[in-house]
């Protein structure tokens, strides 16, 4: 079981308990009508997953998200508003240099005030990959089992606790605390094969419903700032002469050519509905050996040298999975 050894984290937990509040009636209305306690009790684990997905996209909420990985604790303000069509989000990291991320649907603006720069990242799904929506829950259940493990009060909210266990050791497990009233995920932990939490995210100061859209406005006027667009050009990996093999259940989301560290790289992104991984292919500029990148929380990476190319796999997957994916990359005849 997880022991909360860090004093910082214990303090944060107290802060969450003290400061969280909720306008639950509003939240329930937005989530599609207030469900009776019996109806909530009767929900199956996979239904909970759908409810969590819906709530994260459809509800209006604002709060402080606490992220912890090892001794590293970061807090960010999050504001989320759904306008009936697309979701809008503003994220303000509270540590380090001032930054803000303003998201509207698939476009994220990263504000860098000291450089007076806006970096625009736009996701555009490759047309050559039709219908690659995020994996549905049914598909997810082929690789994970989900069960309800209890009911706990977190941040003053009555939460259902779910555990998601992978069938194989090639991916991580998760423990989730879901607000029973709104369906919003209040706390989430990524677990290794021994059940130890590798990282944790939790809401503090959460307010659901009644969010003023003004809260989505950035702290700075960006008039006259330099705007850089990160352009991703959709590509067909096979046409580029590459064959990739992701672990079972991981579906391709994107395959693009993109700028990376001064050069150009191919990037393919895969997701199994919970975890995602990226495969980068770049021309090799210097000799070197294949090696694992240092693990950070649940994130692992592996760099593989292939003749005149470097293949790098990075994602929220165990180290062995990252290596296996990198080693499965194949050059095909052009």
């Amino acid at each position, binding site marked *: 079981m997880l022991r909360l050894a860090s004093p910082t984290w214990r303090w944060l937990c107290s802060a969450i308990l003290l400061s969280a509040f909720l306008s639950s009636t509003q939240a329930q209305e937005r989530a599609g009508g207030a469900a009776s306690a019996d109806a909530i009790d009767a929900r199956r684990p996979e239904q909970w997953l759908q409810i969590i997905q819906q709530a994260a996209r459809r509800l209006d909420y604002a709060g402080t998200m606490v992220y912890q990985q090892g001794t590293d604790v970061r807090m960010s303000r999050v504001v989320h508003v759904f306008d009936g069509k697309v979701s809008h989000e503003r994220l303000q990291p509270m540590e380090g240099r001032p930054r803000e991320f303003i998201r509207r649907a698939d476009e994220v603006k990263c504000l860098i005030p000291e*450089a007076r720069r806006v970096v625009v990242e736009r996701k555009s799904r490759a047309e050559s990959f039709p219908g690659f929506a*995020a994996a549905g829950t049914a598909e997810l259940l082929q690789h994970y089992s989900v069960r309800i493990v209890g009911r706990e009060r977190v941040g003053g909210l009555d939460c259902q606790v779910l555990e998601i266990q992978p069938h194989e050791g090639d991916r991580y497990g998760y423990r989730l605390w879901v607000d029973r009233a709104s369906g919003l995920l209040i706390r989430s932990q990524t677990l290794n094969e021994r059940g130890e*939490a590798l990282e944790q995210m939790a809401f503090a100061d959460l307010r659901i419903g009644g969010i003023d859209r003004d809260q989505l406005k950035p702290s700075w006027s960006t008039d006259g700032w330099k705007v850089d667009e990160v352009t991703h050009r959709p590509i067909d990996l096979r046409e580029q002469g590459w064959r990739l093999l992701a672990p079972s259940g991981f579906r391709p989301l994107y395959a693009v050519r993109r700028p990376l560290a001064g050069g150009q790289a191919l990037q393919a992104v895969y997701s199994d509905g919970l975890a995602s991984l990226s495969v980068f292919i770049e021309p090799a500029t210097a000799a070197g050996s294949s090696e694992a*990148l240092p693990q950070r929380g649940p994130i692992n990476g592996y760099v593989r040298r292939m003749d005149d190319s*470097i293949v*790098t796999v990075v994602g929220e997957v165990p180290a062995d999975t990252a290596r296996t994916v990198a080693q499965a990359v194949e050059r095909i005849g052009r």
Partner: protein
Amino acid sequence: MNSERSDHDHGGTAAPRSGGEEEGCGQRLSCLLDGELEPGECRSLIERLRSDEEACRTWVLLNCVGDAMRSAEVASWHSNGFVARVSAALAGEPTALAPSALPPRSAGRRWLLPGAGAVAAAVVLVAVGLPSRQATSPEAVAVSAPPAATLASVRAPVQIDRSPKLERYLAAHRELSEPALMPNSTPYVRTSGAVLQQEGR
């Protein structure tokens, strides 16, 4: 103490060019290394290290020479890849939430830690001396962190190493990954502001 001083003096005269101005610079760098400069002078010299490639090389050389005189082990820090390997070991420090739940570290690992901290500091010094050809790149913003940098920004300059680094790929991965259950921008919570320096690409 005296022997150390002479190491640096030796390094100063061994600087690539021995023009009067250059030699004065070597002397002053040597004094900087010994902590003998006034704060104002330190600042101006560090400023110079940012833009003067020659002074930067002298600075690295001074450090190498001094370290070599002291011990071969310490000098090996200057070998290619060593700093990167130690930085990697540092970044790979305990990841579980409850450190007490981790298996005990081996004696060898424990021994490494104090040295690793020192290397992180050394990397910062080298990073400060980056020549100005990077001044227009977004990374330069991270490099210009004030001396009283926090641990987080201390690690950022390590990215100047040209070998592939998790950080760079992580930022690119984050852009296109889609959290299924949490708000969409949660991948941005994972990465620090320093990572954003990479975004210019």
